[in-house]
């Protein structure tokens, strides 16, 4: 039985769950939470079946229906989409199970489960869509659900403001994305449509149609389109400068942060770039922009994560930083071709596991201690063993701790999944890039960010779980639904990367035909390697051992530094870690972005200059003209009305005047 017939159920079942939970949730036990769990579990099973079918046959699943004119709706499951599908459904399922325990005391449970079910459906819509317009529609729906869920506790003003900020900031990205789609559509219609002689209807915005005809689109237009698409990804994935919404989005429940802002929604931006990767290959300038923005964001966010005291905000900045890594990996595609997609997606999947685990552990800690502030925690290890151990595994994964050099002996890399994927990006992507183009900046970004990541990750762990309790609290371990999920995710965080490295890359890299990619790269003026993976292995094998050791040194060094400062307290950071230190002040104030964005740009410039000028001109000039015309007419009437004196003789005068004039005219006509 071909899975093609039932793939439409993958997004449809969560939508059904949304409707049912909203309608009947109040009457069911635990707020109707079991309905989405059931729906997503079935979607997960169907996703696995689809993956098996694609793996076996090598043919992507395509289902399409005509919508109107040159547009269609459809489902495309190629290797790229299928790994994303499995990750989204699986992580979403686990987090829903966790939420049954976490949200047990919240009265608005039905609304929560309905909104997360809708969110899952929208995210699946993004992953499954086979044309860019449907992608955008689902993308917008994802943004809406994010707004609803961030502002879940809407009676809290900070939560409502955070939801609004998230929606508006991603909106900026969405507008850029939409502009890119419109320009793409017009280009397709103008340049591509004349060449496609139709036996059947051709759909202009379908990915397959676009990729087959990229060579017909002028390269300048292509650069603009891909930059605009990247603008959309910047908004959704929180890259600089549109990252400002992610830290504030931690106002929502922790499960929301885990689902949306770690594993799924923010990865939609990376997925977008991966999905439209052939277009980016043909416009290598955009790829450079992607790489540099991603790398800079990775470093930038990790500097800010160092000084945060809220446990969730540290993780939020960590998310932004890791997304920067993914963009950095994609940007290396100008040298390594389609393999860049493999590396980025591998890090995406692994990040989903360990970041979700970290967030859920943080949720467990918050649930038991009742506070978010790291300064009020300490010594939790004795009371919360499962949480502590799972968080340790996930932190090791985030910091990228593993054993180098063994991969040459055993055939696969040994270490946490974060080590495998981050190592892949830093060595296989940025190092090869630097080797080929002598541009060492992406490599430097990667190493520095890895160091800082390890520092703040273990700062968090040591401050929360070791040492003496800083305050009198009575922490307790979380219920089994929660710790079970934590354990599953921690195991994935540990071993998934190791076990699936090589097959995963082969599978995902088969999405894009290397020959076509090379052809497109030549179009962009940037010929790349014939057989990327082979070349990559060759280059890395011949690299100096220092280079190979650098990521591990960064990771372990960060861990040791954090251990020294926050556990052993051999070095005290109190002298540099307060607001009198200007460097610390800049970081703690998040580089004054609030001041720049809101005070300067929003208030002073947009409001003060643009808005007030427009209001002035509207009031004085436009209204002035209208009022002027009317007062002119009224004034004229005031003068003219004096003719009506009411005295009949004056009317007789007027009559005689008129008659005289008529007689004059007539007689003139007679005479001449």
């Amino acid at each position, binding site marked *: 039985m071909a899975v093609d017939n039932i793939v439409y159920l993958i997004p449809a079942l969560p939508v059904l769950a949304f409707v049912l939970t909203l309608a009947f949730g109040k009457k069911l036990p635990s707020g109707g939470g079991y309905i989405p769990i059931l729906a997503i579990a079935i979607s997960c099973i169907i996703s696995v079946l689809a993956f098996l079918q694609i793996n076996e046959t090598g043919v992507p699943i395509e289902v399409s229906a005509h919508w109107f004119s040159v547009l269609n709706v459809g489902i495309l499951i190629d290797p790229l989409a299928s790994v994303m599908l499995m990750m989204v459904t699986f992580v979403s399922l686990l987090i829903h199970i966790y939420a049954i325990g976490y949200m047990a005391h919240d009265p608005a449970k039905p609304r929560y489960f309905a909104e997360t079910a809708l969110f899952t459906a929208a995210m699946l819509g993004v992953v499954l869509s086979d044309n860019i317009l449907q992608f955008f529609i689902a993308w917008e729906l994802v943004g809406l659900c994010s707004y609803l869920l961030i502002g879940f506790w809407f009676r809290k003003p900070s939560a409502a403001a955070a939801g609004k900020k998230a929606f508006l900031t991603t909106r900026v990205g969405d507008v850029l994305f939409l502009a890119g789609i419109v320009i793409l559509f017009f280009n397709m219609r103008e340049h591509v449509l004349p060449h496609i002689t139709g036996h059947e209807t051709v759909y202009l915005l379908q990915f397959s149609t676009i990729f087959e005809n990229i060579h017909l689109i002028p390269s300048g237009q292509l650069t603009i389109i891909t930059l605009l698409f990247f603008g959309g990804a910047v908004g959704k994935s929180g890259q600089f400068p549109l990252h400002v919404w992610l830290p504030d989005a931690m106002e929502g429940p922790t499960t929301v942060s885990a689902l949306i802002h770690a594993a799924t929604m923010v990865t939609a931006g990376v997925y977008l770039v991966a999905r439209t990767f052939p277009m980016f290959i043909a416009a290598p300038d955009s790829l450079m922009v992607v790489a540099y923005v991603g790398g800079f964001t990775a470093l930038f966010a990790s500097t800010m994560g160092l000084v945060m005291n809220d446990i969730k905000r540290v993780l939020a900045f960590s998310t932004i930083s890791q997304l920067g890594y993914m963009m950095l990996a994609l940007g290396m595609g100008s040298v390594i071709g389609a393999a860049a997609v493999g590396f980025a997606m591998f890090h995406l999947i692994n990040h989903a596991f360990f970041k979700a685990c970290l967030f859920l552990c943080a949720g467990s800690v918050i649930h038991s201690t009742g506070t978010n502030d790291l300064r009020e925690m300490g010594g939790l290890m004795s009371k919360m063993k499962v949480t502590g151990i799972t968080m340790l595994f996930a932190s090791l994964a985030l910091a990228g701790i593993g054993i180098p050099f063994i991969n040459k002996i055993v055939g696969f890399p040994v270490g946490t999944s974060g080590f495998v994927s981050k190592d892949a990006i830093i060595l296989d992507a940025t190092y090869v890039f630097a080797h080929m183009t002598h541009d060492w900046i992406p490599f430097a970004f990667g190493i520095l960010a890895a160091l800082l990541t390890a520092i703040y990750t273990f700062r968090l762990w040591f401050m929360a779980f070791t040492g003496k309790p800083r305050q009198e609290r009575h922490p307790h371990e979380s219920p089994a639904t929660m710790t079970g999920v934590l354990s599953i995710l921690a195991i994935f965080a540990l071993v998934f990367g190791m076990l699936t490295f090589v097959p995963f890359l082969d599978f995902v890299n088969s999405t894009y035909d290397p020959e076509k990619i090379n052809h497109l790269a030549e179009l962009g003026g940037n010929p790349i390697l014939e057989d990327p993976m082979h070349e990559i292995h060759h280059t890395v094998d011949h690299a100096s051992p220092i280079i190979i050791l650098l990521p591990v040194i960064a990771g372990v060094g960060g861990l040791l530094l954090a251990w020294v400062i926050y556990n052993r307290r051999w070095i005290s950071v109190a002298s540099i870690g307060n607001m009198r230190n200007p460097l610390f002040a800049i970081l703690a104030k998040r580089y004054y972005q609030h001041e720049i964005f809101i005070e300067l740009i929003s208030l002073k410039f947009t409001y003060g200059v643009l808005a007030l000028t427009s209001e002035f001109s509207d009031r004085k000039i436009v209204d002035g003209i209208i009022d002027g015309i009317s007062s002119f007419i009224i004034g004229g009437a005031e003068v003219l009305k004096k003719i009506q004196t009411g005295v009949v003789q004056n009317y007789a*005068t007027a009559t005689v005047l008129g*008659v*005289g004039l008529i*007689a*004059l005219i007539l007689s003139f006509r007679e*005479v001449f």
Partner: protein
Amino acid sequence: MEQLPSKSWNIINLVTALMLMAVLVFAIVSVVGLEPLVPSTLPESVPIDYTVWEDGSKDASGIEHVGGLLFTKYVIPFEVLALILLAALLGSLYMAKKEDE
């Protein structure tokens, strides 16, 4: 509240009257001309109502002729005029009567 003072209205009136006079005179002079119109220039087809006396002489003017026309050709307007005069008489009598308290 304020009326145009009679002085300016007087000027307007004067100007209007003079203009009317100029127009009329100009029209007359340009259409009819200043030379005497000879009666013989009247085309033959225009009928003239003559009074024919017993001795056969024709007379085109005179009060007998007026009377004759008044009671033959124009008798209907004559009767209507009588009615109009009657109406005018009655109307003005009624309007000018003193109101009884």
